């Protein structure tokens, strides 16, 4: 399977293989379990902006769950 690279957006190494191309060996789709970014190994990713921890934590919650007990997952 080979090594799975760190996330190109947040640089976290908690990354995984999400899917391979239906015709085997053409591309792989990777995912970051920290910032939830998905990318294909054939992409140049020229327009992807790097993210900071503050930005991840500061994501807008504009439709909050109704009860304070509701889980607000970060992943």
């Amino acid at each position, binding site marked *: 399977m080979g090594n799975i690279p760190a996330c190109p*957006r947040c640089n976290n190494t908690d990354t995984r293989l*999400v*899917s391979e*191309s*239906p*015709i085997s060996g*053409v*591309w792989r*789709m990777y*995912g970051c379990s920290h*910032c*939830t*970014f*998905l*990318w*294909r190994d*054939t*992409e140049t990713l*020229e*327009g*992807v*902006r790097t*993210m900071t921890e503050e*930005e*991840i934590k*500061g*994501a*807008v*919650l*504009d*439709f*909050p*769950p*109704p*009860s304070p*007990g*509701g*889980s*607000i*997952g*970060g*992943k």
Partner: protein
Amino acid sequence: MPYKDFRAWIGKLEEEGELLRVKDHVRLEPDVGASAQASILTDGPGLFFENLPGYPPSHTLTIALMGSLRRLALSLDLPRSTSRGDLVQEMARRFDEPLIKPVRLSSAPLKEEKHFGNDVNLFEFPLHRLNMGDGGPYLTKTHIITKDPETGWTNVAMYRMQVKDRAKTNVWFTQGQHGGIIYRKWESLGKPMPMAVAFGVDPALTWMAVSKTQPGVDEYDMAGTLRGEPFEVVPAETVDLNVPASAEVVLEGYVPPGIREFEGPFGEYPGSYSHYHRIMVFEIKAITHRKNPIFDAIHIGKVPNENSVIFSVNRPVADTKYMRQRFPEVMAVVPYPGSAMEVIQGNFRRHGDARRVMLGWFMGPHTDNVKHCIVVDEDIDPYDPAQVLWALSYRFQADRDLVIIPNFSSVGFDPSEERSGLVTLCGFDATKPKPPHPRYEMIGWVEPWKETEVWKKRIAKNWERRN
């Protein structure tokens, strides 16, 4: 004749020279997004990709099918030369017809292939990063089907969905939109909301998914009204919902209560990337699709985009109807494509009536997405920016005719918002002074000689002869 299914619609586009089949090998990134943007910018054709990397020839992709006024006309079974104004009038006329209930079939080609549980994989379809800064692949041309747990009202709407895994996405609901209202009810009950998402459908349903309708009115009924025949549905496999029989692909699953996960950014309809958000998630339990499924996408990103082309027709339909019901003097409500601005044309009798209408507009449902309105008189063509700008120049004084309402709730995509979800509404009263305005008697407006029309014809005739 309405379209039987998505393939009949594709066939019509091909017959009318409005579809380009791309047989060359293309890359999913950046070619899908780049070609769709190019098509919209050049008023070009819809695109059908037949040779995608990593996919067998049986799995294809379409985009920008509703990216021109010509194709919007064809989607309503009208001549491709139909003007924007005529499209708006025809759609408004159809929406005033009685509702037509859907017909429920027991089977459909949609059920030719079924995947459940661990066999579910969204990457079976040619997903792609549409804009270079998007947080991942998105499902864009979604027809999201949900049902009110109290009344049974079925809503169909188009919201963005970021793909997170083989069987999981985010789904964008806002509190004021119908999908959000229904989800809030399920969440208050502490129950997961059943949801289905259709791709590749009769365009009548796409019109309903992007249009503002009255809450409580089933959008399958409205789709029937728009196409003039009942819309056909079939039962979903794993959730208590009816799904479009004409669809190429349907996802089925649940939106659990109390869960919000990181999402974004995404190149949204204003032509800017939206903020990072924490929003709802959709867990997919089943996928059904036709053999050789055609996956359909929409172009959203730098303006003009496919979204702005569609809104240039369906917005005036909904907004004119809404305003005329409340203010009979309103003649038309016309958005400027790709902008957050609308022009309200009216036959106002008293000074101040325009202001009253403006305040009514501020309270309308459209202010989720638009924030500026210019009110003009009956002698200004709202479709002609030159005439509207003239009225804004010579029938408007900023200290007197500008109305500003700050801190108004919005959908949250406007990049100029100081705080996400709050906009400032602004109204320009560019109407003539009328009684009892003190300057009413002083001001005269130059009207053309009545012989001008005769002269238009004489000049055209002589000019044509000379050339």
